[in-house]
């Protein structure tokens, strides 16, 4: 399976690179499904490709940035495992208001993207 991807890369990149690209693309697709779900919940029926791509990029950047900031705070406190306080500080740094999160988590009509393992179970 690695042979055609290696050939497409000109054989110069190691085998791990192509698989990581595929992994990133798979996660990116999952994020676009999530954004589509949220847009449908909001009341949109269709979305421009450009707008969807922008929202996916924002979602991905938010996740990575929260993780980076929270890791920074946990390492500042000589910890390797982050705690809730680190995440709260990261939210405060990024200007994310977490006051309405509890009400948001209980909202009606929320949709859940099924994990890929469930889909595999259904096939077998």
């Amino acid at each position, binding site marked *: 399976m690695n042979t055609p991807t290696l050939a497409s890369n000109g054989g110069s990149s190691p085998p791990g690179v192509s698989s990581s690209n595929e992994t990133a693309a798979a996660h990116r697709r999952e994020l676009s499904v999530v954004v589509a779900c949220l847009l449908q919940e909001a009341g949109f029926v269709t979305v421009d490709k450009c707008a969807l791509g922008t929202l996916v990029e924002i979602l*991905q950047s938010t996740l990575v940035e929260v993780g980076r900031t929270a890791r920074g705070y946990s390492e500042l406190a000589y910890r390797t495992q*982050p705690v809730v306080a680190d*995440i709260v500080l990261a939210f405060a740094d990024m200007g994310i208001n977490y006051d309405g999160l509890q009400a948001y988590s209980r909202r009606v009509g*929320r949709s859940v993207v099924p994990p890929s393992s469930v889909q595999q179970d259904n096939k077998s």
Partner: protein
Amino acid sequence: MAQGTRGSAAPLSDLLMQLEDYNPTIPDAVTSYYLNTAGFEASDARLVRLISLAAQKFISDIANDALQHCRMRSHQQGGGKQGSAGGGAAGAGKVAGKDKRYTLTMDDLAPVLAEYGVTVKKPHYYL
């Protein structure tokens, strides 16, 4: 800000208890992947779910504001059409007044994102 933090400290612990058996729209595996990209590895799944929920709410807030923007724009275009024969403008809106099938476009998204501090500029060479 200190008052807000103190006031929301108790609900946050309640929320964490709830997150034990909660499935956010973003799958845990996907959030964990992006957090691991940043070097963040949590053994507690509730922390991952908290981050998923916050990111998801951010996108939902943007989507709701964009929908309001879209509705306002379609109403304005509807009013303008009555005043002048603007058939072309109504077609550009992609929103039929009766159907209410809203399409999210960059025209609606860009001003909303500007409110949230995200500047979107499409390069002129990008097709």
